[in-house]
């Protein structure tokens, strides 16, 4: 019985636009469960691409356990950037961070927590990422989709990853920076 690899659309359908954002059950969408594409030798990378401001970025799909529609967070008093606030993810207090600071993007981080913040933009999402210190969220402006690439297609920074940037993927639509999520929390 050969498993048919799910299409990108099928994967995204499972991520997006749930009637209830606390969809749960997405943990199985790790790389382990997404069969590698045999035609390409089975070593291709799956990236989740997202947008921040005008830039395009990506993290490994395997580390993302859930994508939530952005919601107002509970503010942590005296929190320092990049920490935005916390949300309660089915009983686990999950800190949410603003990746733009690490990525050197201009523009003040919008308030995302507390009663004074505006309603989050419709397209804004929180990527819940699995880390050694428990789940953590990344607040992004939009999620684009899942990209499958062969490792050779990546431009890697010379002399290993610099900072948290793992590589850059160039596509006809533009370039996309691949980052290590753990670095974004620091």
């Amino acid at each position, binding site marked *: 019985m050969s498993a048919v690899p799910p299409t990108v659309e099928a994967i995204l359908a499972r991520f997006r636009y749930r009637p209830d954002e606390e969809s749960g059950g997405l943990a199985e969408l790790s790389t382990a469960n997404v069969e590698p594409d045999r035609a390409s030798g089975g070593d291709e990378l799956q990236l989740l691409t997202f947008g921040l401001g005008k830039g395009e970025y990506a993290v490994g799909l395997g580390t993302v356990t859930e994508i939530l529609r952005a919601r107002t967070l*509970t503010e*942590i008093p005296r929190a320092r950037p990049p920490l935005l606030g916390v949300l309660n993810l089915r*009983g686990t*207090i999950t800190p949410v961070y603003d990746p733009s600071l690490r990525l050197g993007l201009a523009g003040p981080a919008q308030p995302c927590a*507390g009663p*004074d913040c505006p309603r989050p933009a419709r397209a804004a999402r929180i990527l819940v990422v699995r880390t050694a*210190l*428990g789940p953590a969220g990344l607040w992004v402006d939009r999620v684009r989709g899942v990209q499958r690439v062969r490792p050779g297609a990546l431009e890697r920074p010379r002399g290993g990853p610099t900072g948290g940037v793992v590589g850059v993927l160039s596509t006809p639509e533009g370039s996309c920076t691949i980052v290590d999520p753990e670095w974004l929390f620091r």
Partner: protein
Amino acid sequence: MSPERDRPPPEFSSEAVETAEALGRNLLLLERTAADPDPEVLNSVFRQAHSLKGLAATFGQQRMTELAHAAEDLLDRFRLGKARLTPARLDLLLEAVELFQRLAEEPSSVVDEARVLAGQLSSVEEGPERMGEDPLERLELAPETRRVLTEFEEHRLRETLRRGELVWSARVEYPLETFDRELEQLKARLRGVGELVSTLPGPAADRLDVLAFVLLLGSGAGEGALRAAFAGAPVELRPVPVRKERRPGPDADAPRPAREGGEAGGAARTLRVDIARLDALMDDVGELRLIGEAIRALSDARELSTRAWTVEILREHRRLVRRLDILQDRLLQARMVPLRPLFDRMQRLVRRMAREAGKEVVLETSGAEVQIDKRLVEELSDPLVHLVRNAIDHGIEPAGLREGRGKPRTGRILLSAEQLGARVVLALADDGGGVDWARVREVAIQRGLLDEERARAASDRDLQSVLFSPGFSTASAVSPMSGRGVGLDVVKTNIAGLSGVIDVESRVGEGSTFRVTLPVTLATVRGLLVGVSGRVYAVPLSSVLDILSHDGRHGVTEDGRRMVPVRGYNIPVVSLAETFGLPRRAEAGVYLVVVGVAERRLGLVVDALHGQRDLVTQALGPRLGQVPGISGAAEVGHHHTVLVLDVGALLDEVLRGPPLLVARA
């Protein structure tokens, strides 16, 4: 023998720990009567060691089996009067109790110690067998009775005669259906007047529906008292004659005091729950199923009008909420355990530590019956051990020095627990040397914890926070002095992790009292919801003392603290909005929530009160770690998370204040 697995199964650990604890309790009971050990207690200790051996053998725990065997063997010799129970030997047995507990949880950590101790226990030499003629030979027992007596019973009869008491023989008959209960009751009554040495089957009775017994009693009481103990039951009672007349002396032992300390539960990873409690929980679940069924039925009750349907839904909702409340209460109750096992452990610890430190110390306890959440008991152990060690190492003076100071030679530590509403206050008081606050002040300056001016101005109470700060306690140079700061920061952190606070009261020369205030349970916290700049925070109700309206007027002390008079006292106040750096709102600061821990008070200025709630609190998690002023979070309503204030930390922050503590080592 196969090598032991690293971690024995939990069912083994919990039972072994409980048995070892009960054994330890009985050993301490024996200590009080060391010269003339209570045979009944000695017997039950022996039995406990025996069942521990059996248990360990069943689970293939070889080390524990060997150690328990050695302990059992030694206890058997005490029991039979073949060896004397001395304080040193009791120490060995108490050490074995400690090892049993560790072996039960992590056998690999103490393998060598266990082997060494087992060796020591077995090498205890036989006590010098008393010379002279065997008094038992003079006792005119019927030969058929003499034949069936066990070694232990013979030993007890000898002891009776040595004490100059009489051996009585009593023949009783009880109906077949009730004899076991009657015998138990009789034994209980006899306990007051003498020692029941042996219960033997009596010569066949005339009737078939009764059983006859012959009892052998050792007693110094008169015949009247004995007959009274039989409580009118038909009995043939006669003293067993002793050849070579010897009158019972008048100095016969007074009736033994009632025995204390049952075989109450233990403190391990697992929890024993009364089956009745589980039954009640099951009933609750059944009730919830019924409600679920009713709601499902409503979903296709098409004949109802919208209005009637709404009414029905609300009714079911109320039932549901009520039942959930009951369920929660029952679950919380099921988690509650008495402090006794913890206190017992401290008893053993004090004995050992005092011996190691070469000091004379007794530990008195009160409030061991107070119940707290199982998890709290577990987590409380380490901090308490630390405080006890501090009291013995640095608090209690050597006996000679104490006499010089006009104190009793033996130092006294009082460990007490008391429940006050939703809080439990544990206090550890010693009558030792106390904290030398002047010295604390000096050290704080030396180590740059306080600048000189502040330190001179600081009261003893202000200096408390220095005592508990990491920079102070790591100073090993302080420990040999009367300073008591060793590791207190760790204790404080541990206690704070349990939503508790610790403080100390101490006078030079008179001793110290450490007081730990904890919530009764960790599972839910009753919280007062307060509004600050549009945010909502929860204040644990256990630390709320007063709620007042606030007009914003306040005085200011020299060092810039705001003070407000509350019921005759000036207490410091702080605006939560300011402390947390929140934007000010128009309706700002109309209420004052007075929080306090021990004798410290603080007024929190808030904008609104949103009532009380039972909160299921969650930790903020390892990534966030310690967030100053916040102890956790709780969900109230759909997707609405509120933070729970850490009152202890806020008190520290405001009362100590960043300005007072200039640096951290």
